[in-house]
């Protein structure tokens, strides 16, 4: 697995949580090329696969764009065949199959995806598809380079049966914390809330995020006056 230093990567942080009525997906918006930040505001890491199923992508940009387009193509055909929108489980499995079958071919580094959505059979569901093709159905999931910093936070903060606003605030807080501690995450926080009523997208610009000025890292320095004593070094007297 080598990291191509000239290829764009969307490593960042992606989060998906379920709440009582549906799911909230969140992601940062930083794209990096090698050590350079390509842009901090353009990439939308949450892509639509079908009406009420979205995928959060983290990893090499080219491969993930391809996966999204490929799965969306198959789902469009399935929707026509079955006469109803695809279920979240079917979508997640399509993503998983692509990952599993092409593990050896994709030599571009870590790839993690979170498929989240709402369907009428099971309600809101979150599936984490990891590198290699593991699929896990979870109440909440995180992935991306910045996710390791917020594992503990999310374990404590997520509670069963939250309301929509609380869930969205939790996702924004989690991604902001990840942005503050990870170099490959940054920019705005984008959220997508999916429930039986529909899909609502939000964007939280970088200035509005908690921890945007990284207050937790700053230690208070006391203002002190420094007295300067001048030491004059005279030439040695003969």
């Amino acid at each position, binding site marked *: 697995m080598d990291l191509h230093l000239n290829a*764009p990567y969307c490593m960042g942080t992606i989060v998906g949580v379920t709440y009582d009525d549906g799911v909230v997906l969140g992601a940062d918006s930083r794209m990096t090329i090698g050590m350079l930040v390509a842009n901090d505001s353009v990439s939308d890491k949450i892509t639509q696969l079908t009406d009420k199923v979205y995928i959060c992508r983290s990893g*090499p940009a080219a491969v993930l764009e391809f996966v999204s387009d490929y799965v969306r193509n198959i789902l469009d055909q399935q929707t026509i065949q079955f006469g109803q929108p695809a279920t979240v489980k079917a979508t997640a499995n399509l993503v998983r199959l692509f990952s599993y079958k092409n593990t050896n071919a994709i030599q571009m580094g870590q790839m993690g995806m979170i498929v989240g959505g709402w369907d009428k059979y099971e309600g809101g569901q979150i599936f984490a598809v990891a590198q290699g093709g593991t699929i896990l159905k979870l109440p909440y999931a995180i992935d991306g380079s910045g996710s390791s910093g917020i594992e503990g936070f999310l374990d404590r903060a997520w509670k069963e049966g939250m309301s929509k606003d609380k869930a969205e605030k939790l996702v924004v807080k989690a991604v902001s914390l990840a942005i503050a501690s990870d170099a490959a995450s940054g920019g705005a926080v984008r959220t997508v809330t999916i429930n039986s009523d529909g899909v609502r997208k939000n964007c939280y610009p970088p200035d509005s995020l908690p921890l945007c000025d990284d207050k937790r890292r700053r230690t208070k320095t006391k203002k002190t006056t420094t007295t300067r004593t001048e030491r004059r070094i005279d030439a040695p007297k003969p």
Partner: protein
Amino acid sequence: MAKASVDARTKGGFSFDLYQRNEMLLKKGLQLPKFRKTGTTIVGLVFQDGVILGADTRATEGPIVADKNCEKIHYIAPNIYCCGAGTAADTEAVTDMISSQLQLHRYATGRESRVVTALTLLKSHLFGYQGHVSAALVLGGVDVTGPHLHTVYPHGSADTLPFATMGSGSLAAMAVFESKFREGLTKDEGIKLVSEAICSGIFNDLGSGSNVDVCVITKGQTEYLRNHQLPNPRTYTSTRGYNFTKGHTEVLTTKVTPLKSKKQAAEVDAMEE
């Protein structure tokens, strides 16, 4: 019993069979032949009436300037143009290929080409070659759905932006854009900003140089301003010229050898139309 036919996938892409032999030759000291790159500054921006693309005109072969005035803004469709950075052969081949495919598509549909069509074709081609086709492109055009500007990376990912830069001089050009770009520029302001960004690349990046090419695409009209600015004129030209008359060089010895007379050509019929 009828055997179900399996479509064997045609082996496309690159063949890496000689990889070990090449490595062995490199170790023995053989130099790889240099290929011509367009170490480049290419930019694009969306203004109020459409899209403006810009490019420098230097093509390099390692440390040597191979072409002082090459064309980096390639034609894709009458309303779509594409700037290319990376290996010159790759950008030319890819853009020519997509241009042909779009022409056939226009004949089949009878409609003006759309930028997203060109984008999808470019993306799928480049992704299939997994980044080995080194073509980084700024694709811009105006179609029925409005003005579009995209960047395409060699690995097959794409971005949609209001202003974009690519190539070795992209950071210099992006600095100019980030400070001076705003939505709703007029055509003259846009051309001025694009020229400034390219000049920034020309003067601050070794891989970019020579002149500024600009292409303005609006609904129904495209203006290709080849060599819009020439900020690097040839300064030291001799006014006397390079005529060396007889007497400039000292002659030491003279030897005259008459050529043998040629045989007369056989009578042949002229080629008929």
